[in-house]
Every structure is written in C-alpha cells, then in structure tokens.
C-alpha cells in the first residue's frame, strides 16, 4: 500500500457494506478506502451495483443498509440525512440528473452554494465571477442561467451542468457516476481537468464510476476497483482499465469461474 496506512485518516472509508432494496441484496460486502488527494475509479458491468453504492453514500432513502459502515473523515455518514452529507462535503454527479421544470439554473446554483458553502459565498460580485469562470471553463453559455434545471438539456449538457455544480460546491468527496457517458471528447478532457484541479494536491478526493478507460487516461486514478455482483473482485492500477476494455469482465467473475466458463 502506497497510501492509506492506518495512521493517515481516510477521507472515505467503507467497511463491509451490505445494502439493498426491499428483499433484494445489491451490495454484498464492500470495503473501500480513499485517502485525501486520491482519485479512485469503479468499473463494472451494468447492474453490478455501482449507482447503488453512489446513492447509498449520498443517502438515498430507498436503499437500506443492512450491515457495515461508511465514514467521511472518520464521521459516520449513515447517521446523516442527504442534505447534511452534502453540507459535510459529499457530492454526487448523477448518472441521470433530475430535471426540475420551473426552477431556474441561476437561482438553483445560488441556493445550493448558499446552503453548502454558506450565504456569504453565494453573494455579490465574487460569486458571479466564480460562476462565470466555471461556466467558461465548461463551455456552458450564460443563457443556461435562465433555463430550468436539466429541463430539455441534452445528455452532454446535463453532464457538464453536474460538473459546474462540482466546481462551485467544492466538495471534499466527489462521486461521479458515469459523468463521461454522453460527453464528447472535449467534454471528457474538460471534466477530467476539472476533477484533477478539484482533487490533486488538495485534501479532497474523487470516486469515478465509468465504463471507459478514456476518462481514466486523463485523470490517472490511484486505484481501479472492479465491482461484480455487489462485491469488489479486483483492485489495481490504471493498467486494469485497459485489460477490462480488452478482455471484458468474465475473467474476473467468481461465478463464471466456479461454473467453469472462464
């Protein structure tokens, strides 16, 4: 282990997490530790539980945690409500961002920054300057400020808008659930630059959920975890992403091996 010795407190620590919905178990014992300044990635098949894990860290009310712990800088996140977690510095860039017709982007961003970073941060010329700069970085036209949140946005625009929020909210832990899907190549580079700027050399950390190695080439994650059937079956460096892209997931699937398919 290069990082994460027990004397360095992990920013995110997940221990033996079992969770599901109703009677369905989705996560079956996950352990994960991310140190400040690190970027990790999770890859895995459709339906393996990636979004579920992200939702549980954020506090989605539909899921039940049956066992295990989720700690942010040593603090038990599972006791906190979603907005409390957001205020503690957890941010989730959603795989499918929610549209809110009638709620203007500018108004939403101001309220959101005020509730997470405090009223002062959302006021005056400083905030406007910060907002303009972030919008320019992400190539989001100013006209978006008067549009409704994610309403009628294209797939790529929704993802850019999630990253705009990431840049403005300055979280400690950013989870990006397939933010690269639906982005064009320039978009992926921009997002990767945004993640690097938000994490590298800071006390923050990021967890990137993705199906593709392209974004990982630009962020160079410290670790890649492979999630299959609600369990992390392999952890490795950037080379793992290339292997997965070439060989798929079968060779890592314990079930497939047991059945002699692999």
């Amino acid at each position, binding site marked *: 282990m290069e990082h994460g010795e027990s004397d360095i407190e992990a920013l995110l620590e997940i221990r033996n997490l079992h969770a599901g919905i109703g009677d369905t178990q989705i996560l079956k014992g996950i352990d994960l530790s991310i140190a400040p300044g690190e970027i990790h990635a999770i890859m895995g098949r459709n339906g393996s539980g990636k979004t579920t894990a992200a939702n549980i860290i954020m506090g*989605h009310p539909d899921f039940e945690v049956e066992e295990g712990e989720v700690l942010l800088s040593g603090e038990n996140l599972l006791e906190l409500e979603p907005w409390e977690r957001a205020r503690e510095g957890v941010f989730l860039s959603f795989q499918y961002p929610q549209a809110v017709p*009638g709620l203007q982007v500018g108004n939403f961003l101001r309220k959101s920054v005020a509730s997470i970073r405090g009223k002062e941060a959302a006021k005056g010329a400083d905030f406007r300057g910060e907002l303009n700069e972030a919008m320019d970085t992400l190539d989001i036209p100013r006209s978006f400020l008067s549009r409704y949140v994610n309403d009628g946005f294209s797939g790529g625009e929704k993802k850019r808008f999630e990253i705009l929020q990431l840049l403005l909210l300055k979280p400690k832990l950013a989870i990006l659930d397939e933010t690269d899907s639906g982005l064009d190549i320039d978009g992926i580079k921009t997002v990767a630059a945004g993640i690097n700027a938000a994490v590298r050399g800071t006390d923050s950390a990021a967890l990137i959920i993705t199906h593709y190695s392209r974004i990982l080439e630009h962020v160079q994650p410290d670790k890649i975890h492979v999630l299959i059937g609600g369990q992390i079956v392999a952890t490795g460096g950037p080379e793992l992403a290339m292997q997965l892209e070439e060989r798929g997931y079968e060779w890592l699937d314990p079930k497939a091996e047991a059945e002699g398919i692999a």
Partner: protein
Amino acid sequence: MSVSGLPEGDVVTGSFMQAASASSQWILRIEPGFSSQDPVILDIDVKGSSSILHLSLDVGRLSELELITRVRGSGKWFGLLRTGEIGAGAVLNDVVVCLQDEGTLLRVDSIAIGRDAQVRAGTVSSGSERTKADLRYRMGEPGGNLRVLGSILSVDSMHIDHHVEIHHDAPETFSRLTWNSACGGDSRTVGTGMLRVADGSRGADAAQIFHNLLLSADAEADSIPELEVREHEVVGCGHGTANGPIDEDQVFYLESRGFDPSEAKSTLIAAFLNSTLSEMGSDSLHDWLVGLLNSELRTPDA
C-alpha cells in the same frame, strides 16, 4: 357593453353580474395602435360585506398592452365581472392576481378575441377562502391566438374553483391552456376546462392540460377537461390531467445539493407554479409575480 358580448351559456351569471354592477362599471379603452412598455395596473382593494365591479375592456386594434388586475383586501363577498373585446391584431398580456385575505370571490371573464389578436390570459390565485371563477374566451375570427395560464396555490381550507371555456368559432385559431394548482392543507381545488371547436373552424389547434400538485393527504384536487369538436380538419385537439405529490427524485436531487427538506419542498412548489407563471408576461412582471407567490408560500401545509 351588452349581454350579447357574452358567449352562450354564460348568460345567467353574466347578466346577474352585469345588472348588479350597473352602478359600478368601469370602461378601460385602449386606443388603436397604442403601445406601452409599462404595464397598466388596476388595484382593487376589497372592503366591506359585499361589492361588485364590472370592468369592460375595449382593446383597440393593433395595440399592445400588459394589464394587471390585482384583487386584494378582506371583503366578505366580491364579484368581479370583466367583459372585453380584443381588437384585430392586438397583443394583450392580461394577468389577474387574486390574493384576498378572506371572503368569497365570484369572478366572470368573458373575452372576445378578434382577428389575429394574441392574448395571454394568466390567473395567479392564492385566496380568498372561496373562489369561483368562470372564464370564457371566444375566438370568432380567424387567426386568434390564446394562451390561458393558471398558477394556483390553495392552502389551509381554501376552496378554489375555476371553469375555463375556450371557443374556437373560426378557422386557424390557436389555443393552449396550462393550469397548475398546488394544493395543501385541507384545501380543495377544482379546474374544469371546456374546449369547443365549432363546425367550420378548419385548422384549429387546441390543447389543454391541468396539473395538480398535492401537498398534503387532506388536500383534494379535481380537474375535468372536456372536448367538443365539431370540425374534422383540425391541427390538433388534446387534453390531459396529471395529479401527484411532490416528486421524491426531485427532492433527493435538491437535498443532495444541500437543500433541507423544507427548502426543497418550498423550492419545488415555487418551481411548479413558476412553470406557468413565467409564461405570463415580461421578465419584470415575472420577477414581481415570483416574489408575490414566494411570500404566500410560507409553510403551505403546516
């Protein structure tokens, strides 16, 4: 103004209101070609046990106007009759804001829309205790274009009932009705729409939709859109309703951005009402209306 200005079926309430208001008829005459950036604001402060007002709008051809009729105060019973003729090619932005503290409001609108005239008719209402409104629009000449919009917030034990009738009596007429009601407490809202497309109104295009946002278990909302289409060659004629509580996915999205549950809820109610509000007029009017509704929003369902 004579009773003949009222569409059929409207005669009973309309004539009653007209007779009762014989002594208090106001005529607002807009000269042909008149145009103004500033809105005309009619402030009605309701007082006493009962009062009634007949407002007669005569909007000249090719004029452009934003008209705001604001009803406030705390009378026991108030009747508002608005009859109007919108001249050919006129562009009218007509917003009626009903925010009485108490009492009953009976409102009848009867508006005839001229050739190629464009009318946006908005209603913003969060009061009084009881509101019964009967809004009728008739497009008797080709090219008329009508948007009817409602932003209704019923709280406590309010009872708010709107009936909107739109008559397409000429070819190439266009109408859209979008009615959003947010209902909390043990209030009740009713929205009924009657869309009539007369024989001969070729190329008519009409649609109406009622959305009800239910904020509490005791609130009740009914909407009944009705269609009566006598012409085959129409562009479209649709109607629908959608009822439901606040969307949990929207709540989670806002909470993940730091909104606490009550902020999330009031933000989503405001957004819902804003969807129709923002269509009602100019940006400055919109800002003003949003401020107004937000101050009404307090704790809608406490």
